[in-house]
């Protein structure tokens, strides 16, 4: 196999954590779309809150990516 073992471990870890954050951001987006549909005049605030929430969830995946870079 041409893949080094330790590199494969980190790549697998990043892939697994992206599953979780993908589901999380998807749920967040679903909630945001429903809220926007119910109250079109609050679209701006909902959008802001959605982006901030997405930043938090994405940061969790980036922690794993960071470990992969630093090791």
């Amino acid at each position, binding site marked *: 196999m041409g893949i080094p073992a*330790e590199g494969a471990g980190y790549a697998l870890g990043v892939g697994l954590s992206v599953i979780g954050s993908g589901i999380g951001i998807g749920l967040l987006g679903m909630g945001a779309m429903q809220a926007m549909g119910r109250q079109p005049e609050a679209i701006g605030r909902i959008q802001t809150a959605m982006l901030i929430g997405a930043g*938090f969830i994405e940061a969790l995946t*980036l922690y794993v990516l960071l470990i992969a870079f*630093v090791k």
Partner: protein
Amino acid sequence: MFILVGGEGGEAAGVHVPELPDLVTLLFLRALPDASPETVVFKLFGSDLFAYTVKDISTVFYFTLALVIVLGWAVVFSRLVRVKPGSRFAIFTEWVVDGLRRFFGEILGAKEVDRYIGLVGGLFVVILFMNFFELVVLMKPPSSVWGINFGMALVVFFATEITELVRNGPKKYFLHLVGYDPSLPLVMTVLLGALFAIIHLMEKLMRPVSLSLRLFGNIFSKDVLLAVFGGLVVGTVGTGLLPKFMGVFLYFFFIFLAALLSVIQAVIFSLLSTLYIALSLPHEEHAHEEAGHAA
């Protein structure tokens, strides 16, 4: 390869993490023979503990540059120059400050905003500038080194602790730390208090770590992303794989992503700091009592 300069991480594994080059590092590498970003440039007091590498100097340089730009803007606007009230500079600055006051005032409350907007709004603007250094050619964002982010997170940590101590008084601070419940017998209070204090203390200590790691992770990986795709774009332009202009279009998408992430992470850092400070301010007790009487 001249584009991809070896980064700080991965030195332990012997693998270089690619990063974009920046002006200060390039100048050092040109001046010193056979150097790398880890070369120690000078040692303060001659000790190994204070050995500063090329990377440290370039990071501090760009951080100072961001601070000089933001502080210079503030000082010029408020003191040095007689700014005409209708000029574009005045309107833009007032728009920025007013927008920040409104955005953070929703969390802090209108009474406390003016006291803390300097810290929180200043953090937001400085982090925004630092992140945007990524997108300028030959400049490096200082937030791609963990030390800078940890320093800012420590400032926020000390701000919240001191705010809580000063505004609530040391007795209330200690009782909140311990989770005091006056309805329990003494032994239970002490035991539960000790347990709760440990958890609460750990949560307090984790806050600066998570704040700084979030910003550092985002900016550092964004840096590596831009460097890797920059190398790919340059690598494929010469070959027949992509027509020459396609590489630039691809890279434009990544620059857009980087700009979006920069803004979002600056907002998140300052918003979380505001939340922590707002949580440490004295709570309004009257509203609860009124609701209890009305019900």
